Each structure stands twice: as C-alpha cells, then as structure tokens.
C-alpha cells in the first residue's frame, strides 16, 4: 500500500508533466487509430467498388483484346430511321465454351460468362420535312449486362440486392425479362412490370436491384442467352456462343495465382486479371485516398509515435534528474534500485494508460469527423476491363474503428510510457547514494 500511496502522491504532484506525456502518447495512439480506421474504410470502399464492378465472389476475370476495330457504334448515322440499336464495348469476344474449359481447371470453384452491351435509344423524329430546322434528336445510351443464370453468384450481378420484384431464376433463360438498376429505374420511371426496348426487342422489368457502394456496371441486366441473341446490328450476328468476359472463382484465396497461371496457359491470347490487378488499376480520388492513407498516413503515424516516445522518454529522464535528491535519499535509507525502478515504471504505466484512453477517444473523435466531413470519393476503372467501358462509381468513406485498432492504440501508448520509464529507471539505477548526497549538498 505504501507503494500505491507514493505512486498516487507523485502523479498528483507532477500532474502537469504527467498530462503532457499522456497527451503526447495519446496523440500518437489516436493518430494510429484514425489512420487505421480510415485505411480500413478505404479498403472496405475499394472492396465494395471492386465487388460492384465485377461482383462478389469473383477472383479472376478473363477478357481479350478486340481483333478488329469497330467501325462506328450504335448505328448512329448509319440509318436515320433506326431508333434502337446495340453495340458491344471495346473488349474482344471469347467463346462461351471457354467457360466450360475453365470451370474444369483444378483450382477453379466456378466460372461464368458475361456480356456487356450498350443500348442506344434514338427518339422517333418523323420524316425529314417535319423535323424542326436546327433540331436534332439526342440519343440516350444505357448499358446492358448479359447474366449467366447458372452462376448468379459470379459477375457484376452477384452484388445486386433486389429492392422490388424478383431476381432471375434458371427458368428465365430464354425469356425477355430484365432486372433494372434502381437508379436507372428512378431516372426512367420504370417499375416492376414496365417494358423496356433493347435493340427493338421488348423486355419486361421483373425486378429492380440496388448495387452496393454507388452502382454496378450496368443499367439493365438480361439473361446471357437473350443478350447473345440480340442481333440488330449486322456485326453482332456472330454474338451467339460468344461472350466478352469470363468471371472465375478460385477454390481459395491462396489458389488465385495458380488459377491465373492455369487460365493463361489455357487461353494464351486472353487477358487474365485478378482482383489484385484490378485494384491496382482503379484510379480516382479513392485510389488517391488509399495511397495517402497507406503512405502518408502510415509514415505520419510512425513519425508522431517516435516523437511521442522520445518526448516521453526525455521528460521522464528529466523528472528523474530532478528527483536525484529523493532517490539518493531512498538509496541511503536502504531502498534497492529495483524498488525505485519499480516506482518509476509504475508511474509511467499509469501515464501510459491515461495516454491510451486519450488516444482511443481522439481516434473515435477523428474517425467520426472523417465520416462527417470526408468528401465523396470516386473510383474509375479504365476501359480495358470487364465492361469495356470506363466505369466511375462514387464512394462514401466510412472510417471504421476496429477492436484491433483500439488494442493497438493501448499497446502503443503503454509501450511508449514503459520505454520512457525504462530510460528513467536506467538513470535512477545508475545513481549512487554518494553521488546523490553530493548533489543534494
């Protein structure tokens, strides 16, 4: 109890210095919590972006470069009377049989094909004589994804959540039914039961879906077979049995490199992209934020922690220096060095705990501030992937303080304080009672 009495009195006596050290440690720990929370939020946002781009469960995508440049697109200008037409993206075409070949590979859990088209809708304008002078109709475009109904868990549709109506079933394979993205449905005033026209073919909206984190890759989802059958545009007559993307799930995350290798061997001309490759290609403010968090954030945290540890150590050693008379007296009275060191370490540990509490509070506060004021970030995928189009999604950054971040903050603050205590204890241990007496005199 004498130990605790002495400890309590000393901390109260040196409250200001103790608080300074605790605040320093708290700022360092709080910064670690904040950076960890922001990084976690960014990682979650990146994962959600990737999921929305090619779906949850997809580990690898297979595409190929276009063999022949497309001559125009959308039928625009080719026929003034053509009101609805279709074009494929800039990605090349793969044989649907490749899906079967890939699904039989050793480390592959499942494979699904996909197709992304762009529908072009030109408002009806009547004969040239009736068209007002200088008035030209404005075409609207919308993206159409062909969904492999046998593998709804793969591809961009996998992360869609049905908000009204129903999703696809296997029996919809040959039906002209569609699931529409919620944002697109709102813009076009579509509901369950509405009709939409894709390349002059009428489809019935049977469901409306929301994609996580700002939107998926398409406005409209239709069965893959129906997408392949749409041949409005002459060049598209070869779509039957063709796809532009294969989505692959590996048996485990550790098998992804092996799957990449096996598919590259099977389809040497194809572009095989893992989720890691795609992540590195995502640009936009989300990528910038990720870079800032991992580079600047990490090094800033390290620098602040080192500074906090150094300041704590210096202040503790200075405090021991001011207590030379006190510790020298105790040694003269027969106190062992280890008892004095234990006293110093206990004082430091208490300061560390106070610093940890401050750090956690600061971390939570800063994370809340990030949630409140962080601007909406964007993520852009270049056109070489999946849909063949540049795809930009908006992402809200939500900083998440995890239990592990809190524990890390506690460990860092207390470790910093104990390191400072060790320096102080080392200095106290080197005191000789005689030296202390000389200084005291």
């Amino acid at each position, binding site marked *: 109890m*004498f130990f605790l009495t002495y400890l309590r*009195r000393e901390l109260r006596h040196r409250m200001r210095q103790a608080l300074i050290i605790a605040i320093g440690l708290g700022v360092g720990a709080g910064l670690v919590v904040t950076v960890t929370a922001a990084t976690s939020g960014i990682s979650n946002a990146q994962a959600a972006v990737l999921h929305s781009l090619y779906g949850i469960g997809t580990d690898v995508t297979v595409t190929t470069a276009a063999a022949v440049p497309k001559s125009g697109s959308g039928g625009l200008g080719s026929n003034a009377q053509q009101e609805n037409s279709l074009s494929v993206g800039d990605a090349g075409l793969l044989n649907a049989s490749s899906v079967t070949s890939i699904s039989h590979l050793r480390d592959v859990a499942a494979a699904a094909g996909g197709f992304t088209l762009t529908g072009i809708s030109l408002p009806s304008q009547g004969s040239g004589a009736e068209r007002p002078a200088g008035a030209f109709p404005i075409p609207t475009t919308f993206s159409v994804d062909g969904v492999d109904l046998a593998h709804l868990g793969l591809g961009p549709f996998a992360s869609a959540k049905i908000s009204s109506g129903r999703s696809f079933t296997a029996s919809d394979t040959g039906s002209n039914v569609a699931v529409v993205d919620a944002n697109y449905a709102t813009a076009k005033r579509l509901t369950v039961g509405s009709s939409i026209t894709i390349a002059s073919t009428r489809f019935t909206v049977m469901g409306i879906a929301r994609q996580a984190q700002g939107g998926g890759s398409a406005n409209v989802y239709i069965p893959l077979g129906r997408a392949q059958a749409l041949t409005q545009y002459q060049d598209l007559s070869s779509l039957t049995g063709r796809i532009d993307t294969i989505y692959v799930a590996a048996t485990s995350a550790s098998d992804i490199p092996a799957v990449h290798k096996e598919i590259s061997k099977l389809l040497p001309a194809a572009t095989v992209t893992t989720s890691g490759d795609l992540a590195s290609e995502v640009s936009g403010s989300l990528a910038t934020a990720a870079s800032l968090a991992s580079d600047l954030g990490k090094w800033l945290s390290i620098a602040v922690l080192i500074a906090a540890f150094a300041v704590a150590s210096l202040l503790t050693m200075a405090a021991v220096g001011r207590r030379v008379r*006190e510790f020298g007296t105790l*040694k003269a*009275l027969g*106190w*062992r060095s280890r*008892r004095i060191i234990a006293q110093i370490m206990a004082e430091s540990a208490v300061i560390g705990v106070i610093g940890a509490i401050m750090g956690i509070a600061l971390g939570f506060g800063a994370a809340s501030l990030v949630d409140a004021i962080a601007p909406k970030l964007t993520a852009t995928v270049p056109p070489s992937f999946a849909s063949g189009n540049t795809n930009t999604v908006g992402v809200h950054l939500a900083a998440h303080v995890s239990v592990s971040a809190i524990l890390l903050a506690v460990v860092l603050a207390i470790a910093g304080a104990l390191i400072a205590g060790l320096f102080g204890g080392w200095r106290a241990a080197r005191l*000789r*009672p005689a030296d202390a007496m000389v200084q005291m005199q």
Partner: protein
Amino acid sequence: MYTLSDVTKNYRKGDYTVVALGGLDLSIEDGEWLAIQGRTGSGKTTLLQMLGAMDRPSAGAVRFSGRDLAGLPEAELTEVRAASIGFVFQTFNLIPTLSAIENVETALVPLRIPAAKRRARAAQALADVGLSDRAQHLPSELSGGQQQRVGIARALVKEPKVLLADEPTGNLDVDTRDEIMSLLEKLWREHGLTLVLVTHDTSIAERAQRVGVMKDGRLFTGAEPDDAS
C-alpha cells in the same frame, strides 16, 4: 564499531586525480560521539560516505561490526544501510509528496515490516522527537526545525547501531540549532547510539566526546576544537 585502516579515496576529474581521503586511519567505539570538523573540501563528507556504506574506498579497509564494507557486494551494502545505519542530512531530504509519518516509514520499508507495525513505530518515533501532532503534515507545511526532527525520527526509527549526521543544523537558525542538538544528544544517550557528526560549528563540536579534524584528506583526532580552522 568502526575500524578504518589506511583508507584512500580518489576521484578522477578530467585529466587529474583528486585525493579526497589519503591513507586515513580511524577507530570509533560503540556508543561513542565523534564530531568531525574541517574546511570545505577537506574530505568530511567523503569520510561520512565511507562510514555510511554509501561509497567504497579506492584502497584500504572500512570495518563495521567486524565486516569490511569495502569488500561487500552492493546488495549487502544496501542491507547494512537499511538495518544498521541512520542518516541525518543537512538539507533534511524529506520526500516532498509524503507526510511526516510517511517519510519516517520510508526508513522501514526496506525492512519489510508489516504495514500496521511500521505505522506504529513511525508514530512512536515522531512522538520521541515531539512531533506527534504534525504526523499528517507535508514537509512544505513544516518549519526547518520540524523537518529536521522528522529527519532524525526517520534515522532512528529503525533502531540503528550508528547515526551519521552531516551538518544537521547547517540550515537552521541559532535557536533551532540548539534545540536540535539537544534532541540529538538526548537520543544519543537514551538509545546508546554511536554518533558521528560532521559540523563546521565549533560550539556544536565541543558537545561531542571526541573531536576529529579533517585536513588534506587525513583525520587528526584528540585535537582541540580551536584547531579546526
């Protein structure tokens, strides 16, 4: 109690060596009161550090109750200080954050005495020096004389064999000085202590049984107090 044989203590100061004690011989009997005088820098404090097991000589032997302190490991020296030697300092050296009674207890902590017994002995020691009513006061709330009384109580609470006092009245006014010296003398007689007291003050030195004078690192005993200057 003490036998010092050819004790030398040197200190390195940069490129040269300071000889604090130069071949000192001294015997102190049990229960004796020895006063040590000398100019500043004559080695008085260094001698007290040798007697108090607070430092080791560069050469020679310091025998205390038959044991050569110079040859003991640090842990045993600490035990000797804890159990057998009481110190009274010129500047009192009380722990500022502890009360009077807690300061007295600090001398008993190394002896691992149970808390209740420790508190009781500390209270008695304060009573012996007339400070029972100041037990809960912090040093900052005590006068110089009262602080030195607490220092004396702390030195004696462990019932040491020897009491070493380094200028115990050096920071006190004349009246308080007499008060403290009377107290020390009384306790010396009552407890049968061996008392070694360092002082500049001849009037204080004259109260001792024997006076030694430090000069150039050597101690001359049996000299008259007048020869200390």
